[in-house]
Structures are given as C-alpha cells and as structure tokens.
C-alpha cells in the first residue's frame, strides 16, 4: 500500500514598512498594515477560500478516505482574524470533518530553533495552544519552519509531551541510497520521521504551469501513473508514504486558477482511490502504518526545503542576514530580561523567517523565487528597513 501524505503550509508574515532612519522614535508603527491586509485579501480570494471549499467538498465526496494535513502559523491565524475571518471559519469547517490533521510549529514561523532553544520551545507551546483553541486539535506531528531539521531538533521536540512525528525534507545527501517513501526514525530512535518526496511535490508546487518543462502539461493521469510506478520497487508488502509537502498558496496563488491547478486537485483523489493499492494517510497515522523496523537517520547539519541547496542559505547565506538575525536575538535577550511584553511581541514578529528571506542575495535561479515573494526592491533595502526597525526597538527598550 502506498499512502499519499498531503501536508500544506499556511503562512503569512507581518511585513515591515519601508522603515527609514527618520521614522525611528517618532511613535510610528513598524508594520505595514495596509500591505498585510491587501495581501491577505488577495491570497484569501485566490487561494484560501476556493481551495478550502474544494478540499471540504473532496473530503465529503470520498467519505473520509481523502485526508490532508495543515500547518498554519500563528501570524497567519492572527491575520485571518484581522482581515479575513471567513478564511478562519473555512479552516474550522475543515477541522470538523475529522479528516484533517493540524501540525505543530513555531507560532511566529521563526528560526528560533537555531538561536534560542527556550524561545523556540515557548513558541512551539504557544502554537500548540492556538491549535487547541481554534481547531480543538491536539498536535502530535511537528514541522519546523521551512522544514528545517537537525538531530538536535528531535531532542527538543521529544521533550514536549505528545509529539510523535516530525516532518522534514528528503534531502539526497542524507538519504543517499535510501528512499523517502518509508517512515524513518530520528537518530535517537524515539521520533517518527517523514521526509518530503521533493521531486513529485515540486512537480505540483513549482513546475505545474512551466511550459518549458518537458512533462508539461501535468495531467492527473500522468501524475497518478508516476505515483503507481513508485509501488513497483516494494516487493515485501511494506507500507509506503508519498510525502507531498508544499505551500498551500500553490493553489491559486503560485499556480493561478487558469493553470488548471484546481481541476487537477479536484480529480486527483478519485484517480488515487480508484487503485486499490493507493490511498491517503495523515502524518499522525504513519507510525502505526509502518509495518517494518524503521531505520534511523542522523542529520548532523541542518537541512531545509528551500532552494537547490536544501540548507539554511536562503535565510542565513550572507553577512546581512547574519548581522540582522544576531542583532535580533541579542536584543531579544535584553528585552526578555527586562520582561517588557509589548516589545517581546514586536521582537517575535520580527523573528519571522520571511524577513531574512527577503535579504537573500542568491540571485539567478533560486533568487527569482525570493524576489517574487519580497515586498522590497532589493535585499539591501530589506536589510536597511529591518535594521532600522531593530534600532527603533532598541530605542524603545532604553526609553
């Protein structure tokens, strides 16, 4: 049996204003409410609302055999409440079907894991609480920001009662000859690991509408044949998991409705479920379904799902990013020791990984993706505004 494991990432950051030196200490708001509202309205209309509607319909249509998992950040939920409450309601409707799993992560979609373990754990707990409040869901699966994973992460997550599974990227340099289609264990064998099958996931997320791609157009039939083909390698009856992890905004936002992405999704579950040895599973179900001794994998160096390199270089690849994030966490320590809740909140909003992603200078191939997602003209501009915001924060602290 091969189970398709769908997990969609839902995230919106609080974007910063074009914050200049002369804006500092003038009692200004640092975040661009107008832009954040406009983005939320656009993405809700193009992606969240139509896709949620489709998924709800698919769940009903397939009577529980079609399942999906979401990871929704705290900053996204907050902005649903502010700018698009109907979006939150539609996620809640999905939660009520019982065919949806919610995945744990850091509330602020931050890189705290790499800089401040206490802060990381706190943000994870905050997010867990939020999932309980909004969806009545007790999270048991965890994914770190941008699927960043390292052995140490599993130790931290294991410490938190209830987490059994972690999602990460199926990085070739870790898997080597192994297949991402099996559930693994972390290096200390106490956590279940699921690894993204990036080739097929990225066929949908990145290549679906690319006319230069030899496989264009991607039909449901073609894709399901590829999926089916994967089962041929398994001769011992072991359950396989095809982990299709992607940004939820793939639907309607990165791949516009005109590309046929909604039609694809509409017909995909039927085509899978028609074949008796194919099905769907939630991440939380995988450790029970793993009918074999799970091999343990060690990730000495951090991996992620970003860019060709699948490492941290999209957020921590140049001097600007390093100076920015180190400044943030140094300042955060000071704020924390002063116990100023208001400033802690701002620092946390500034810890969202997107801010560092905007400063990425890896142009050419991957950089294009970065540029598409950035509200600023250049990485340098993004850096200037961010550093100014941190200067503002520090002024408020010493006031």
């Amino acid at each position, binding site marked *: 049996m091969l189970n398709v494991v769908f997990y969609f990432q839902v995230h919106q950051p609080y974007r910063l204003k074009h914050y*200049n*030196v*002369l804006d*500092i*200490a003038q009692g200004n708001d640092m975040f661009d409410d107008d832009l954040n509202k406009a983005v939320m309205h656009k993405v809700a209309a193009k992606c969240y609302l139509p896709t949620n509607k489709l998924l709800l319909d698919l769940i009903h249509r397939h009577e529980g055999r079609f399942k999906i998992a979401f990871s929704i950040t705290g900053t996204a939920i907050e902005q649903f409440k502010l700018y698009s409450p109907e979006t939150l309601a539609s996620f809640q409707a999905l939660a009520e079907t019982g065919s949806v799993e919610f995945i744990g992560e850091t509330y602020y979609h931050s890189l705290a894991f790499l800089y401040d373990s206490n802060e990381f754990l706190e943000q994870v707990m905050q997010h867990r609480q939020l999932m309980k409040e909004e969806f009545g869901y007790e999270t048991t699966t965890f994914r770190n920001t941008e699927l960043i994973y390292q052995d140490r992460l599993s130790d931290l997550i294991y410490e938190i009662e209830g987490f059994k599974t972690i999602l990460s990227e199926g990085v070739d340099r870790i898997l080597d000859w192994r297949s991402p289609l099996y559930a693994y264990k972390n290096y200390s064998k106490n956590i279940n690991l699921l690894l993204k099958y990036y080739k097929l996931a990225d066929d949908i997320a990145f290549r679906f509408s690319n006319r230069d791609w030899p496989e264009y157009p991607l039909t449901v039939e073609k894709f399901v044949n590829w999926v089916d083909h994967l089962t041929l390698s398994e001769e011992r009856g072991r359950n396989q998991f095809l982990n299709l992890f992607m940004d939820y905004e793939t639907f309607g936002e990165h791949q516009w409705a005109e590309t046929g992405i909604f039609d694809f999704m509409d017909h995909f579950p039927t085509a899978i479920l028609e074949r008796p040895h194919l099905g769907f599973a939630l991440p939380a179900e995988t450790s029970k379904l793993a009918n074999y001794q799970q091999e343990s994998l060690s990730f000495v160096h951090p991996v992620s799902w970003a860019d060709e390199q699948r490492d941290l270089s999209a957020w921590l690849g*140049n*001097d*600007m990013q*390093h*100076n*920015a994030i*180190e*400044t943030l966490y*140094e*300042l955060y320590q000071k704020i924390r020791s002063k116990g100023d809740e208001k400033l802690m909140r701002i620092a946390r909003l500034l810890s969202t990984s997107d801010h560092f992603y905007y400063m990425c200078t890896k142009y050419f191939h991957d950089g294009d993706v970065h540029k598409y997602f950035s509200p600023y003209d250049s990485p*340098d501009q993004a*850096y*200037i505004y961010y*550093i*100014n915001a*941190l*200067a503002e924060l*520090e*002024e408020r602290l*010493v*006031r």
Partner: protein
Amino acid sequence: MKVLMFTWEFPPLIAGGLGMACYGMIKALLAQGVKVDLVLPTREFVYFPMRKVSDVDTLPAVFVNSSQQYEYKAQKFKTLQERLEYIGISSHPETYFQFSELIKQSKALNYEYWYSENTTIEEKQLWDDISTNLQGEEELMQKVQEFTLRAERLAQILDFDIIHAHDWLCYPGGMLARKISGKPMVVHIHATEFDRAGGPGNERVHKIEHAGMSFADKVVAVSQYTAQMIMSRYRIDTAKINIVHNAFSVPEDAILDKKRIFKGPVILFLGRITLQKGPDYFLEMAEQVLATHPEARFIMAGTGDMSRKMLRRSASLKLRNRFLFTGFLNRKQVELILRASDIYVLPSISEPFGISPLEAMAFGITSIISKQSGVSEVVNHAFKIDFWNTDLWVETINHLVENPDKCIKMGIDGMHEVNLIQWDEAAAKLRQLYSATLSEHIRKSEA
C-alpha cells in the same frame, strides 16, 4: 555689471555642493547689484535672467526660440514645480540632438571661429584639445556638447560684460562664448578631476580642465588647497589664480534646534557615498568606536556608487543596528538628520572645499574634518585630521563621546564662527575680481 554664467548644478537641479555654492554666490551677487544671466543644462533651451535676490528661488526663464517663448508665456502654471518641469529642470537634463548631427555642427563651429585669421595658434590648440576630448558617445559628453552649442547661440544674442563658468562641464561653452563675444572669462574651480576620482581620473577631463583654465582670463579656486592643486597639477600661471572661499548661509525657514532620534551619541556622515568622500574611513572609525561605545549610532546619509559596498561591509563587520543608512535625503530630511546628530565627520580624501561641514556647524554640530579639504582653511572651531589617520579620528570621536559638555561647547563655538562666514564676503571678492578682469581686458584690447 552683467555676468553670463554657466553652471551644471543649481537647486532644484542639484547633485552636490556645486549647486549649493552657486545658489549662495548668485544670491549675494544679486544683492550687490550684479546682474546674472544663468545657463543650466535644462531640457528646453532657456536661460535665466536674474535681476533681484528672489530670482534665485523663482527662477524666471526665457526661451531662446521666440515661438516657444510665446507658448511658455501662455502657460498657466499652478506651482513653481510645474513650471520647472515644463522647462525640464526637475529631472536630469537630456540631449535632444542626434550625435552625428552634433559632430557636423561642431565641425562647422570649429571652422568658423577657430580657423579665422584673428585666432592665435595657442587659442586654436586649446580649442582642439576641447573638441578632441569632447568626442564620444557617452551620455555626459553628448550633454556637454549640446550645452556648448547653446553657449554659442547665447553669446550671440545676449549682452553681457563678463563670462563666468563653473567646473569643467561648462568650460567649452565658456570658451566658445568668450571667442564669439570677445568678453573676458572667469573659470571657477569647485573640484578637479583629481579630487573627484580620488586619483588621476579621466585624462580627457584633465585636458578639458587644462584648456579651460589656460584660456580663461582669471581662475577662481575655492580654497588654497585647490589653488595649490591647480598650480602643481595643471601648471596654471599663478598670477591668474584667485582664491574665493565658499560660505554657507542658513536658509531662512530652517529649524536648527536639536531634535534627537537616538538617546546615544549620533555620528554623521553626510554626502555622496563615493571614494572621494572617504566613506570607507567612516566605516573603519565606526567599527573601532563602537567597540568601546556600543551606545553610539553611526549614520551614513546619502547615496553613491559605494553605497552597496558600504552596506555589505557594515554587515560583515557585524555592526549590529548601530550603523544605519538613510538613502537619498531631500533638503528637509537633511535638516532633520542634522538636528538629530551630535558629531559630523568629513573624512574626504580630497575635498576642494566642502560646504557640508559648514552646514553641520550651523546646526551646532561638532565637526571633524579632513585636513585634505578647503573648508579646513576657513574654520577654527572644528577638529582637523589627516584623512588616513584613523586612530586619531577614533580617539577624537571617543573623546567627544566621553565628554559631552566639551562636544556641545565646541558645537556652539563652531556655530558662532560659521554664522560669520557669509556669502556677502565671497560675492564682494568676486565683484572686485570681475572689475579688475574687465579693466585689464580693456587695457589689453586697447594696447
């Protein structure tokens, strides 16, 4: 006394200190009764007849083409801005001539004026230097060529006593005007190619600078420092050289009171972020001062070809959120950043004058300026340090940061001093120079 004046910068068409200097200078000249017909690299072919002091702000314009002038007069402009946009002064000037056409015309020019009997071999050679070095398809060279052709026309139709050309871009035009009108010419050196390039620079520009200064009746240098440069690098006859220091007059609507942004001491670099201004020395100082005084804030204000390099380097030095960039600032924003600063530094490698420190001092900011600058000749209440002596810059900044009372006192003394450095004095010197040049010229032509 009426002056035909050529300059490449004038507010709001401004890129640096040249525009500010011309503004102050012309304003003071007008106040002393001198009339100025000003020529700028505007998009449309106009000149600005300035007769009264307020004209420097209203910029009355006349189109050389009479039908255009008629149309222009018929326009109803709601704002000054709108009118200036019409004549193309709000943006950078553009060339509307075809390049090939220009070459043709400039050949004709060459023949007509420079191959006639009453041209000396020396004159002809200097003009050859100009026309050879002005050839080129670069945008700037084309703009200079067009500007030069305008000068020809204006020299024919306007009536004036003397020609005054600022910096090399205007020398070819000034020379042509002198040749056509037979009126004497003063060239004004605000910066040489050696200053701008922070090294030898472009040889074609040297040739044009040399030709302009050689051809001129008088050469004005903005400082002793610059006069020295003109003598040693361009071998110009010392008898022709006059020094007229720049000045600074605080705009009437300026607010000078302190308005802090940061609680810690603020050290400011304000100017083009380019090699000449020594921004890399500023960064080096910041790194060292911040090691002892993390409460300080260093602000690099302005833009330039080294902006990105400085930004990336400040990040690699991990200067945290203590080294900040403002990007381009307009006049009002410059005022705000000055009001928020405590110490101003000008670590220029070579600064013919440098008006910006005077402005900073007028705001009561303690200034530390490069010894390799003209401005250091006119102020006493400022620290003067060789640009390369980073240790001493750091020591001085640390001293001021640690002794805020001394810093404030120095700032106030500097403010009083700068208030006495007015354009009136510079304009009076220029007026005398004009008269002397004229009578010399008359004597020569009579002889």
